[in-house]
């Protein structure tokens, strides 16, 4: 280390200061907010995954019911096929879900 370096270090030297508790508290608050945000995000994705899995299962079940309905028997009886009723229930459920999600925003 040269003399110039020593002089510069002396000029740069800052007196030791105690921790700034206000700043520490500010960072702590930001960390707590970050934790809450992360928890909410995780919960949202979990709920989404569960609902997606449920929807896929219901759609698969309805598709099977549709396939089991008697085919080629005219439009009137077809409207009474279990698959049609099942899809109507599914669309109603989706409609209610959509209304709930927009209402809570």
């Amino acid at each position: 280390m040269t003399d110039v370096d020593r002089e510069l270090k002396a000029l740069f030297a800052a007196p030791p200061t105690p921790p700034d508790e206000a700043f520490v508290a500010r960072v702590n608050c930001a960390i707590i907010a970050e934790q809450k945000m992360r928890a909410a995000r995780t919960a949202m994705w979990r709920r989404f995954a569960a609902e997606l899995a449920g929807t896929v299962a219901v759609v698969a079940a309805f598709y099977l019911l549709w396939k089991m309905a008697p085919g080629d028997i005219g439009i009137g009886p077809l409207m009474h096929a279990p698959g049609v009723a099942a899809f109507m229930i599914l669309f109603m459920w989706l409609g209610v879900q959509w209304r709930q999600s927009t209402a809570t925003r």
Partner: protein
Amino acid sequence: MDDDARLAKAAAAGDAAAFSQLVRRHEGSVRRFLLRLSGQSADDLAQEAFIQAWRFGSTWRGTGTYRSWLIGIAWTQFLNARRADQRRTARESHWEEEMAVTVEPTVRIDVQRALAGLDERERAAAILCFGEDFSHSEAAAIMGLPLGTLKSIVARARARLTQKLEVLDD
């Protein structure tokens, strides 16, 4: 394992109290570095640096000191903020005027004035090596530069600082 390493490990596992201890230990160093670098209070940047450290705590491998890792994050934050700042040129030209108003009393005005005449990399290298007592290799790691490049930047900063401080003395 030193205290910082133990606390960093706990913080990486989600212990907010341990991270708070790390903030208490290093906030002065990080804020002083950013203050000298930007010439004005940079608490928002410092806070963002600590939040990044919290988010990516598990990426600290313990190869350098925790303080140097934090200062490296602060340096990256500073560079990102500068890039995002559309009015950079206008601010640069008013830098010295701002200094007189916003500089904290703990920072020596003459050193700050001398620093104001350096470019960002020279300023950062000088603060790290002369102000924060990092070795050249630590400073190179913090700034993400090869050691040789850092050494030439420090040499240039040393020469310009000496020259400017002599002028200020006169």
